[in-house]
């Protein structure tokens, strides 16, 4: 029995609204297909509010450096901000092991064939974290610039990570994700001298898709630019 939603094992929200009936067997539904996910997301959001947790949903393509950014962030914030991580991947607990090595509580979700985390999975992962003792929760989504855009997990912000090796036009190629995000981390800036990547052009494209997006340029490898990111986290 799950304590978040009362479901026997998995998937069940009991909802018995049978809609308005029309003659001829037509039933008006007019309901968002993601309504169930959105209800779980609201439950998560309520929990975050009650416990005073600032939750971030990290999204990106695979290999942009989400886990490396987290490792460095968690080590540098250690003793200052109480953090935890929910890791999402299709398979393996490799990332959870890397996070656990920083000493921060972590829960791995394996989605199997699934291409995104949903709010129900995250709700269950939260049951196993010390929610009462946290200030900041990072949810590292499955590496995928398409599907996670549609699924609210209850986070305060979607943070999109883009690495400079991916090409500057990603915001225009995957506009739904960049539109859904209001924070962007431009990672691996230490590689800029070696590649053709027009930073200004990239930032301009990101702002076209998501006006008002907050952008940090950083390198999780060298630590360049990380201080501004930490400052933003501390202010929340």
């Amino acid at each position: 029995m799950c304590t978040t939603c009362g479901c026997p094992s998995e998937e069940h929200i009991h909802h018995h609204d049978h809609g308005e009936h029309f003659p001829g067997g037509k039933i008006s539904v007019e309901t968002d297909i993601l309504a169930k996910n959105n209800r779980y997301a609201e439950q998560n959001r309520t929990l975050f509010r009650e416990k005073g947790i600032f939750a971030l949903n990290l999204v990106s393509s695979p290999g942009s450096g989400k886990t490396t950014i987290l490792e460095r962030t968690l080590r540098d914030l250690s003793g200052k901000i109480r953090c935890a991580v929910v890791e999402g991947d299709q398979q393996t607990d490799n990332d959870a092991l890397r996070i656990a090595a920083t000493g921060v509580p972590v829960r791995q979700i394996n989605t199997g064939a699934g291409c995104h985390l949903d709010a129900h999975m995250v709700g269950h992962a939260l049951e196993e974290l010390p929610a009462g003792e946290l200030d900041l929760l990072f949810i590292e989504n499955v590496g995928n610039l398409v599907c996670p855009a549609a699924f609210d997990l209850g986070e305060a912000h979607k943070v999109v990570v883009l690495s400079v090796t991916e090409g500057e036009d990603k915001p225009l190629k995957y506009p739904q994700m960049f539109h859904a995000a209001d924070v962007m981390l431009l990672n691996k800036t230490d590689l800029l001298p070696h590649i053709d990547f027009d930073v200004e052009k990239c930032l301009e494209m990101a702002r076209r898709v998501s006006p008002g997006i907050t952008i940090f340029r950083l390198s999780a490898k060298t630590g360049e630019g990380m201080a501004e990111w930490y400052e933003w986290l501390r202010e929340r």
Partner: protein
Amino acid sequence: MHELSIIQGVVELCEQHSGGRPVLAVTLQIGALSGVVPDALEFCFEAVTKGSLLEGARLEIERIEATGYCSDCGIVSRIDTYFDPCPSCGALSLTLRTGEEMRVKDLEVE
């Protein structure tokens, strides 16, 4: 391939609303910027609905065009992408009015 989860959501919603009766047809409304591909929905519909009240049901998809509101000239216009400028005055940063819908509109039962 989150179209699979989308169709699973559709099946659940329809089963909740059909009062236990087999579903003959379901109409979805899908926004042009929702990130969901109608062809992919149709592709997995048959497989996902097998053994449910929707088995054999007809899937109808209504596309909803994307529109954006321009705060500079006050006009709402049809757009194709998140980053289209206002067709009337050329301003950027339109506010999306429609286009992200993913809804079950209605269903038809026996």
